[in-house]
C-alpha cells in the first residue's frame, strides 16, 4: 500500500512544484491543477481499496465530473484573456496592482 501512496504523493509534489516554478504560461498552471486533482483521485482509489469501501470510487466519479466542468470554464477564460492581451504569459498579466 505504501508504494501506491508514494506514487500519488509524487504526482502531487510535481503538480505543486509546477505551480511554483511556472514562469511561462497559464496553460501550464491549468495542467498542474489537473495533476493535483489526479493525485487526489488516486488517493481516493488507493484508500477505497484499503477500506474495501466503494464510496471512495464514487467520490472519484463526482470529482471527474466537476474537473471536466472546471477545465471547460478555465479554458474559456483562457481564450478570453488571450483575445484581449494576445499572450498567455503569466508575466504579462499585471494590469491590476498585485
Amino acid at each position, binding site marked *: 500500500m505504501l508504494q501506491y*501512496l508514494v506514487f500519488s504523493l509524487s504526482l502531487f509534489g510535481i503538480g505543486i512544484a509546477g505551480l*511554483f516554478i511556472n514562469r511561462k504560461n497559464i*496553460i501550464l498552471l491549468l495542467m498542474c491543477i489537473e495533476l493535483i486533482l489526479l493525485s487526489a483521485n488516486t488517493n481516493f482509489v488507493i484508500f477505497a481499496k484499503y477500506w474495501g469501501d466503494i464510496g471512495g470510487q*464514487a467520490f472519484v466519479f463526482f470529482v471527474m465530473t466537476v474537473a471536466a466542468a472546471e477545465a*471547460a470554464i478555465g479554458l474559456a477564460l483562457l481564450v478570453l484573456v488571450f483575445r484581449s492581451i494576445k499572450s498567455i504569459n503569466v508575466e504579462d498579466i499585471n494590469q491590476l496592482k498585485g
Partner: protein
Amino acid sequence: MPDILFMIFASIAVLSALTVVLVKNPVYAVLSLIACFIATSLVWLGLDAEFLAWTLILVYVGAVLVLFLFIVMMLDIRFATMRARFSRWLPVGIAITAALVAMLLAFIAKDKFIPNADVAILAYGKDNVRNAELLGNHIFTNYLAQFEVAGVILLVAIIAAIGLIYRGPRNRRQQNVHKQISADPRDRVRLVSGE
C-alpha cells in the same frame, strides 16, 4: 497488482508528469499529460477500480485533455519565444515541494496502511458483483441527490462557457426564412414597358 507492472506504469506516469512541467513546447506538455493520465489509469486498474480506469481514459483524457490540446493549438503560442527562465523560483519551489512531500510521507508511513485480508474486493464485491454494478448501486442509492447536483454543475459549465465565448454571428450571412417566405413578388419585380 504484480509489483513489476505497478513499477513500470508508475514510473511512466511520474516521468510524464515531470515532462509536463519541464518541457518548453506546450503541445509536448499536453501530450505528456495525456501519457501520465493513461499510465495512472493502468495503475488504477490494478487497484480494483475498473470502471474508473475506463472512465478516466474516456472522459478525462478523451474529452478534457483533448480540449486542452485544441486550445493550445488554437492559440498559436510561439513557444520559441518563451524563454524558460527558471531563475529565482526554481530552488525555492523545489525545496518547498520536497519538504512538503517528505513531511507527508513521514506522517503517512507512521499510520501504516496495510489492508486487511478480509476486506471486500472491489472488483467483485461481496456477492460476486462486478465493479461497475457495485459502483452504480452505491451512487444511485446513496448519492442520487449529489448526482443531480453534478448534473447542474455541468449545466452551469455549458452556460458559462458559451456565454463567455460566443459573440453571435459575425461576418456570416444568415437566412431569415420568415422574410424570405413573406416576400411579396409585387414589391420585388416591376414590369416596365420597354419602348
